[in-house]
């Protein structure tokens, strides 16, 4: 059995704002095997972005508050780390790609300066000049056994010695890492990378900016890449190009990816495993082909059915009645029971069903949080 790169245990996150307490995540547990792509899909407000931000602790606290739970990243208890140690985990450990690339690139710096920062930090960590979580030495082959423990990296001093700083960090040699930066730009299939280097983010198109973000995230060689709706701001033809690129890079770089999207089609395209979220709960998790073809939670089934694929004269679209519950006043028991066609008295009782091996599932990895997961197949 290989060690998981990420293990989340019963993570619960609340937002405390004037209007009340919003339970954005409730008891989410998830385990990611190295080298696999886990997709998270759900509607707006289901907590998928909160989950993405909670892992590298990017949530703004307050209003967010981690009520309970643990996030284990390669043996490091991320939630227990003091704040000043967090940068050591981010970057070369956990890297992120966000939805709007224009918001994540600094408008005042040229592309080169933004990319070189990532490359420089990785090099400093690799040479041991500064501490930080590094990817395991053999990122290509996780199957051989346990990945090296990353926790030791955190015990080294934070700052490099003055001599090293002079040599590495504060060198004014702007072109020290030029070759590296160019290599990553070529990796993300940017033609003519030399000219791109001197441009500012606003001079690039959306698809181009997202490629720069991907290059930046990958140049850190992270053990875990979290992609939060990376193509939602792009047009379909550009999205298809970026997804193709990410898929090709997945084979080359072989990092573990947590891929978050509201688009069932994008997840089907990218993920090996998929988790479906509803109102802060992970309601179903399993291999993507399995979950899409034989869903074991009534919500997953309803979500898959509501994708429009018919013409007007084929009759009305099947739609799910009701709306997503208010996260500050969640229904008791299973949060889906007021809209669920399978609901029975037990579903409204506290506590709701927990994520467990789905009844009647073909593969062992298929889990669902439903008391009647064996009956979902008979739903229309």
């Amino acid at each position, binding site marked *: 059995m290989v060690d998981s790169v990420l293990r989340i245990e019963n993570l619960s996150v609340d937002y405390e704002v004037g209007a009340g307490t919003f339970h954005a995540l409730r008891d989410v547990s998830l385990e990611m095997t190295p080298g696999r792509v886990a997709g998270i899909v759900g*509607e707006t407000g289901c907590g998928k972005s909160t989950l993405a931000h909670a892992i590298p602790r990017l949530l703004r606290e307050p209003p967010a508050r981690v009520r309970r739970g643990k996030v284990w990243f390669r043996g490091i208890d991320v939630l227990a780390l003091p704040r000043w140690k967090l940068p050591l985990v981010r970057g070369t450990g956990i890297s992120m790609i966000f939805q709007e690339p224009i918001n994540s690139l600094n408008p005042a710096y040229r592309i080169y300066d933004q990319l070189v920062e990532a490359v420089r930090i990785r090099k400093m960590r690799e040479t041991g000049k500064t501490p930080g979580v590094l990817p395991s030495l053999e990122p290509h082959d996780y199957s051989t056994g346990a990945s090296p423990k990353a926790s030791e990296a955190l015990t080294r001093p934070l700052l490099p010695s003055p001599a090293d700083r002079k040599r590495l960090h504060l060198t004014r040699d702007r072109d020290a890492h030029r070759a590296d930066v160019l290599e990553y730009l070529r990796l993300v299939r940017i033609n003519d990378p030399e000219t791109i280097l001197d441009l500012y983010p606003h001079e690039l198109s959306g698809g181009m900016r997202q490629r720069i973000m991907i290059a930046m995230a990958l140049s850190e060689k992270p053990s875990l890449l979290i992609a939060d709706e990376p193509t939602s701001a792009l047009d*379909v033809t*550009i999205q298809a190009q970026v997804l*193709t690129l990410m898929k090709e890079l997945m084979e080359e770089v072989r990092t573990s990816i947590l891929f978050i999207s509201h688009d069932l089609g994008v*997840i*089907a*395209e990218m993920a090996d495993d998929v988790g479906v979220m509803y109102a802060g709960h992970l309601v179903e998790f399993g291999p993507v082909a399995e979950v*899409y073809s034989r869903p074991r939670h009534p919500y997953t089934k309803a979500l898959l059915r509501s994708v429009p694929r018919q013409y*007007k004269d084929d009759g009305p679209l099947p*739609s799910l009645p009701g709306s997503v519950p208010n996260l500050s006043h969640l229904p008791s028991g299973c949060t889906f029971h007021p809209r669920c066609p399978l609901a029975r008295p037990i579903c409204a009782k506290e506590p709701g069903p927990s994520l467990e091996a789905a009844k009647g599932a073909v593969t062992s990895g298929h889990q669902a949080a439903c008391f009647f997961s064996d009956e979902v197949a008979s739903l229309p």
Partner: protein
Amino acid sequence: MMDALLEVRDLYKHFPVTQSFLEAVKRESREVIHAVDGVSFEVRPGETLGLIGESGSGKTTLGWTVARLHAPTRGSIRLAGKDITRLQGKDLRAIRRQIQVVFQDPVGSLDPRLRVWQIVGEPARAQEAISKAELRARVAEILPTVGLPKDALDQYPHEFSGGGRQRLSLARALIVHPKIIVLDEPTSALDVAVQAQVLNRLVTLQRELGLAYLMITHNVAAVRFVADRVAVMYLGKLAEVGNVRDVLERPVHPYTKALLAALPTPDPARRRVRYRLTGEIPTLIHPPPGCRFAARCPFVIPRCIAEEPPLRLIPGPSDRLVACHRAEEIGGVKPEELIAADAGAAPAASGST
């Protein structure tokens, strides 16, 4: 042939790009954005024309110009037989009884300080003198038709969910009983489950009230369900127009094929290995000469770069307009063939060049 409700002929909309302060003051500029560049189409009574395109294709500008929210640069727009291209003032306001717009952003297009009856009733008040009690009664009457409760009259927009706000916009458009509604990305801000509810509502309303829609969207799935005919727009021009089933199942124009091939399908068994279309959308300030899609087209021949293809009728089972020199040759190429299993495979028709 039924008379067209909305007839657009050779419509142009250019926006000036001011480059210096002096130019801005003198209100002259050398460069323009060719947002809509010679577009002709018609919408018949009671039908939906879906207008698909990516961002920057000029589809929203086209919708706004048709509803006369922009003044057209050139061309003509006829609504129910009347030329509305150059209307102004009172006459312009009068046509809003017949054509209404539902805007893309359900948050930005609803005034947060107004109550539901004020928001929904505003178009009616702009058209005629009407008492507050009567206006409230009319709003209360229209709310159930879009699936909102009658007693929502005194609520504020923030009390509604995304789907609820989009219904409010729809109710606001319906209050003057228009003949045609321009739907600008009606569901792009909504989740799939809510989107299904709104799309069903749009279709029911159309059947009950005999409305025509001009539906502008990048969402092919939504167009498939709502539209009778579909027009595909690329860089300010129409690439292909035809019956919705025909266009989506047997696309002729290479861009339509590329667009359909790019759609991610929620079926893990049909994973694409590689998407072949490269390049990005060119700028509308200097649109390329010849065919606008030539730079990205997998079927490009020298003629495409030299000569602009006109939108012409392609013989076939139904009326189909396509702007492509090679429409007849490449008509049979399926969108799936633009998704290659390996990098070396060439598209089927390119062998004949």
